[in-house]
């Protein structure tokens, strides 16, 4: 079975720097033999979390929209790439809106304790954060990491790597960046091979 990869594009801006970087990553995974899907969040119909905590009682979200089937898909893949540009030192409202909706999965894990991910499961499910920023500060991504870390942790993925490039204003776009796109393609290849390696290890142990 091929390694399943899903890439979420959290930018409101189609085919911009972040989505282009995500595309390069996905191309790398496809070339390595993965089955790949890309989801553009701005084209989905979902609302942000209401903070009602109803999910703390039964592990279900009361908001029935396109976020729920998307989470079903996310929980079914081996590799999840989450892409967002940096706006105001954080991820976009579109991506944060989706991440906040994972509260019902968090509630299953930590309140109801009906969901548990083994270490093996976490190790074989890889999460990648992809981002670009106009600013040249190295710390421009720092405030985005805690939400991404919490998200991968909630859904049972290992936070495997970042593909991030700043100074978009200086380079006049990711296409002119000296290394970013090649690095993204390489990391796509690498993560698929890593997941395949873990599968082979598990099979060898099983025998």
């Amino acid at each position, binding site marked *: 079975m091929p390694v399943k990869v899903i890439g979420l594009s959290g930018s409101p801006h189609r085919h911009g720097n972040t989505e282009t970087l995500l595309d390069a990553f996905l191309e790398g995974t496809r070339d390595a033999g993965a089955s790949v899907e890309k989801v553009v969040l701005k084209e989905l119909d979902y609302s942000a979390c209401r903070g009602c905590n109803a999910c703390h009682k039964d592990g279900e979200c009361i908001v029935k929209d396109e976020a729920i089937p998307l989470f079903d898909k996310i929980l079914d893949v081996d590799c999840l790439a989450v892409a967002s540009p940096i706006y105001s030192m954080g991820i976009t409202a579109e991506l944060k*809106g989706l991440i906040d909706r994972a509260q019902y999965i968090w509630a299953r894990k930590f309140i109801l304790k009906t969901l548990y991910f083994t270490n093996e499961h976490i190790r074989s499910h890889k999460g990648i954060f992809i981002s670009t920023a106009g600013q040249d500060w190295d710390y421009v991504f720092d*405030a*985005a990491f805690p939400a991404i870390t919490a998200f991968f942790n909630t859904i049972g993925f290992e936070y495997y790597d970042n593909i991030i490039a700043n100074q978009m204003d200086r380079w006049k776009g990711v296409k002119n960046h000296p290394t970013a796109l090649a690095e993204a393609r390489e990391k796509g290849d690498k993560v698929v091979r890593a997941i395949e390696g873990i599968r082979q290890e598990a099979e060898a142990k099983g025998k």
Partner: protein
Amino acid sequence: MPIKVLAIAGSPRRHGNSETLLDWVLDEMRKEKDVEVEKIALDEADVRPCKGCNACEILNECVQRDGMDVLGPKITSCHVMVVSAPIFCMGINAQTKAMIDRFQVFRSRKYVLKVPVVAPELKGKRLGVFLSTAGQDWGHVFNGAIPTVKCMFHVVDIPDRDIHYLMVNKVDEKGAILSHPTAKQDAENLARDVITEVRARLGQ
């Protein structure tokens, strides 16, 4: 001159912990005769996310027509801007993040078009207050939100030294803040300190 306080309750949950913290601050401020308080619930303000189109760098305004048309002038003309928001998933909640991203138009004015964001007589006389609550008991639970909050205040001419914070962790279920040992007192003290400071800056 009355001191104008604009308060934005950023939580999608009405009258929850972060909004209660805000109400404590505002109730204390309202006791002062020279203070005018306006409170807006972001959940009812119809503010959509930024489209990332960068048109504001040329047009000096946003291409979207929504609640931000009403909110924008209030934000740039108040003396004290208070924002309350809960922490969801280690960051500021998405609804508040959407509003902050719309401050891009102020950023364009300040750094690209280089036109004034606030009236000259308000410069150096504005204070910001950020109030937050989080369920987790980790002290670092607010760290992801603070840089975004700073961005928000900076682009409307409220520098770091003029931002006041009150962030209360370990309050999750609705009403949990009511049994917090110090939050109400801290909120009232903060309110008095902020009004005293603005009066001094205005020479009142």
